[in-house]
């Protein structure tokens, strides 16, 4: 139930957006997020985008992994 899936935003038609979810196009609501743009990645849960996933932070976690493993 609490599963949220990352999806790429293709088009905005506020409060909706078309996203690519595992290859399939889907209409989801994005009105609980601040300034979503095409190209952004969002986490989708039951038809609602609940958070943006940032590329930078994906890299950040890799850095964290490296750091912890090096210690």
């Amino acid at each position, binding site marked *: *139930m*609490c*599963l*949220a899936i990352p999806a790429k935003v293709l088009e905005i038609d506020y409060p909706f957006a078309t996203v690519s979810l595992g290859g399939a196009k889907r209409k989801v*609501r994005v*009105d*609980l*997020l*601040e300034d979503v743009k095409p190209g952004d990645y969002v*986490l989708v*849960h*039951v*038809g*609602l985008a*609940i*958070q943006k*996933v*940032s590329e930078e*932070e*994906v890299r*950040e*976690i*890799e850095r*964290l*992994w490296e750091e*912890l*493993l090096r210690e």
Partner: protein
Amino acid sequence: MGGVVERIVEKIREESKEFEEVKIMHLCGTHEDTISKYNIRSLIPENVKLLAGPGCPVCIIPDEDLQKVFHLLEKEDVILTTFGDMARVPFEGKSLFHYRAKGKDVRIVYSVFDALEIAKNSDKNVVFFAIGFETTMPSTAVAAKEAPENFFIFSAHRFFIPAMEALMPNSEIDGYINPGHVSTIVGVVAYEGLTKYKTPMVISGFEPEDVLLSILMLLKAIKNGSPLLMNEYVRAVRYEGNVKAKEVMNEVFDAEDGSWRGLGIIPNSKASLSRVYENCDAEKFFEDVFEDFVPKEDKRKRNCLCGEILKGKAFPTDCKLFMKACTPRDPIGSCMVSFEGTCNIWAKYGKSL
């Protein structure tokens, strides 16, 4: 990222050497899925015990809520909408699918917005049986704000943070893996009040690397007595969470004392529709229908250990019915129904100890 898993496992082995036993509890069914799917329990040393907590929203809904929905279906000609998982939960051998087979209008929806669409295109009253933690609540809240006159919400939503508040004092658990997607909404900030229990917590993502790294972070924190609150899932969880989602959730829902399977009554854990939204509250609108409602006990569940499993006190294999009388095809308890239920997950991937 090749070899990352092996490297983290190696570190976990080193870190865990000095402990006799460490008990780590995760609080999200999706974490149990990752743990069982990738056999994480067998990858890590035996003295690091991974327990499953009450992190499955379908599982923790008490029978009373389900019976109430059945009662409503029996008395009123409504279109009942809910998620697929919930529709399969049995009470005395009957589920919402059973009612559908008997001719009741029960519809499975992917989201509350689909239920809203059904209401907009129908003259009948549409009831959405709403379940889920803070991850799911914002969607229901958004729908409540746009509800047409014939749309009602039966809220079985539960706030997860109060459950942690109930769980943490006097617990034998040494460290917690906090639910990742609940945290995308509530944020790191929501757990700050829980640091008073001095048990380290880490918000974790759902890849096997995330879970393993979280275990490693916890082991270090348990050893040092700090930090008490860590965020491993930085790519999706911000300090403040999703502020807009929290706002709409707080506007639409009030917190009341609510009952949980296995955990009993937890203060301020049930999300009921607030005054302003009471026009779409199914329990208020159909008040008369519920007047003669009396909860019963399901005799089939007498030997079901779901309640103990949700507290981390038992594993599915401790249940005599597991994969005998109780299977995913013919489940007895909710833990065998939901894709986030520990019994269902263990049935899917085989024994996971």
